[in-house]
């Protein structure tokens, strides 16, 4: 009798557990980790990407694929990025991770997810080495070598520049990547790099470096850095009467740059992922789905989306798209979606229509897509051109 009752209890429990797991599988198709710098010095970029992801989730909430999101903060440091990735994989058991917008942190996180064989998609980490030689790491943005090459060619062909000085952020892999590629391409095209000057993210004054620029009078001053330092650099360059054309990368592309640099930013030319035209701009009618995104974003957050918001949005849609396709191949509803399947699908991603361009993954897991060149004009940007990779 005693044995009997314990058996009944066991059965009841087993069936409850089975039922619970079953409904769980029905409710959620996959778990997606989101690992971003939500506090710390790079929190701005992380929050923008998060806004983009949230907007995409809202739009896709009616679809028949249900994804559960687990968010972790990296505090803008590589150490916390690695810890956060570890937690997402071992304790939250996510199937795929959208991780980090800052290259140095993405590199740290990628080493963990590669080892655990969990695919990771970075919205905006542009340093070449993030995906290099990795089987499970992908990204939505183009890479530094492309960005540096594009700007060097633009300076040579369109601005007829003969010489340049590079002002490099020695604390950032991103800045070094852009700087090296700009240098090699500019020199290959027959230009002269007068000097590569360096600064640190801790610096609050850049007068010593800019004094050098002032004496050398280069055609181009290339500053591939982040807005906190670039803003001060631009202001000081204006104070010193430096007339060189200032070029930069996507690290400039935030509203905060203008609030620090004020009108010193005007005339600056950058390469970036995405252009958010407002309705007054004639270029906005060209791309209707970009306009739809910008309008939806403005309605939700009362601000213009930055490149990081657009990349976050595209990243989530890519993951959603990939999982929808895998789910369609499943015959039985109880079949779960594995990380391995997501990884295979990401590698084969082709002609995905994102708002940052049409994305096809190359064999190194980097998307083949165009870069946008923008000029800062008072109160806005002027779209100059969009350059495709050869």
């Amino acid at each position, binding site marked *: 009798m005693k044995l009997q009752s314990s058996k009944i209890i066991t059965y009841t429990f087993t069936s409850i557990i089975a039922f619970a797991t079953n409904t769980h599988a029905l409710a959620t198709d996959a778990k997606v980790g989101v690992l971003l710098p939500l*506090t*710390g*010095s790079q*929190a*701005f970029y992380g929050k923008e990407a998060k806004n983009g992801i949230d907007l995409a989730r809202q739009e896709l909430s009616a679809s028949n694929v249900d994804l559960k999101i687990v968010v972790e903060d990296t505090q803008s440091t590589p150490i916390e990025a690695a810890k956060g990735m570890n937690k997402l994989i071992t304790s939250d058991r996510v199937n795929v991770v959208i991780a980090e917008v800052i290259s140095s942190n993405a590199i740290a996180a990628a080493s963990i997810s590669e080892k655990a064989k969990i695919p990771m998609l970075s919205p905006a980490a542009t340093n070449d080495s993030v995906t290099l030689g990795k089987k499970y790491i992908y990204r939505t943005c183009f890479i530094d070598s492309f960005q540096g090459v594009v700007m060097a060619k633009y300076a040579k062909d369109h601005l007829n520049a003969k010489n340049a000085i590079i002002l490099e952020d*020695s604390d950032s892999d991103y800045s070094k990547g852009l700087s090296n590629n700009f240098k090699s391409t500019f020199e290959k095209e027959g230009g002269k790099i007068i*000097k590569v*000057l*360096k*600064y*640190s993210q*801790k*610096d*609050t*004054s850049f*007068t*010593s*470096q800019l*004094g*050098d620029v*002032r*004496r050398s009078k280069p055609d181009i001053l290339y500053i591939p850095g982040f807005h*906190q330092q670039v*803003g*001060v650099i631009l*202001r*000081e360059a204006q*104070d*010193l*009467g430096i007339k060189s054309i200032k070029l930069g990368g996507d690290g400039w592309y935030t509203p*905060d740059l203008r*609030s*620090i640099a*004020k009108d010193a930013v005007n005339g600056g030319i950058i390469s970036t992922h995405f252009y958010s035209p407002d309705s007054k701009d004639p270029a906005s009618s060209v791309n209707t789905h970009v306009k739809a995104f910008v309008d939806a974003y403005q309605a939700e957050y009362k601000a213009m989306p930055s490149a990081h918001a657009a990349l976050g949005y595209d990243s989530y849609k890519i993951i959603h798209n990939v999982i929808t396709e895998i789910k369609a191949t499943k015959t039985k509803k109880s079949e779960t979606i594995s990380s391995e399947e997501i990884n295979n699908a990401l590698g084969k991603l082709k002609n995905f229509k994102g708002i940052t361009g049409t994305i096809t993954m190359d064999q190194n897991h980097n998307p083949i897509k165009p870069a946008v060149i923008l000029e800062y004009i008072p109160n806005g940007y002027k779209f100059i051109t969009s350059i495709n990779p050869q």
Partner: protein
Amino acid sequence: MLDFTQAIIDGIAIGSLYALIAIGYSMVFGVLQFVNFAHGELFMLGAYFVMLFLTLGAPLWVAILFSLLSVGTIAVVIERVAYKPLRKHSRLAPLITAVAISLFLQNIIQVLFSPNSLSFPINIPGNIITFGELFVRIRDIGIFSLTLLLAFLLELFLFKTKAGTGIRALAMHADASRLCGVPFNRTVSLTFFIGAILAVVAGTIQGMATNQIFPLMGVNAGLKAFAAAVLGGIGEIRGAVLGGLVLGISESMLVSYGLSTYKDGFAFVILILVLLIRPQGILGRTQLVKV
């Protein structure tokens, strides 16, 4: 030669800020033989308070005055609450507490004002005047003059007033000064207050010059100023000013000779060298410690 002269000019402004912060380290050390590692955070707090009062609509001079008073008071409270109870314990105890206070202040500001950098409402334009190839910012001349003026006024205060004499007496010999009727606790508080005021001035200048403030701005500035204070001879006002300027100019030289990567490490190389070769610093006097 041109690079060399320009580097000296460029280094003076940042050196002046180091000097203003270094004076606070130096005075507190002179009086209590204790390094107040939370001092860099007073520099940061000063900038945040000025910004807060400005956004509340106060004119600049009122904002600065209120910020001086508030941060000065905070410094005095920190001393009373966190350091005073530990005065009789080992020398290490208040030092560890100071690090804790420093972390506490950094994080409370991150919680209250977000970890992002904020744009400062009022700016000093950075116009330059040129002498041939050389150039100097008018702003930097102002910062340098203000630093010298404040250091001069402080010396005047220390040598010409009763309270100032009290501070010097305390620095010379704590027990003997007590016997002569110097109020110990009040004098220590005054020292912290003065140090805080100078840090607030430095923080406000940096905010207005760079147009941005952030919660961790005191970390680097504080460490550099500490190195400057040791270099000049900790406990000496003139030493702190000299140390700040020497450090600022050396850093600027490293940058102009293409060694900017080593710039931040340089302050600590100086710190180690000074402690090894001349622990009392450039202007410091060797003291006989009688047992």
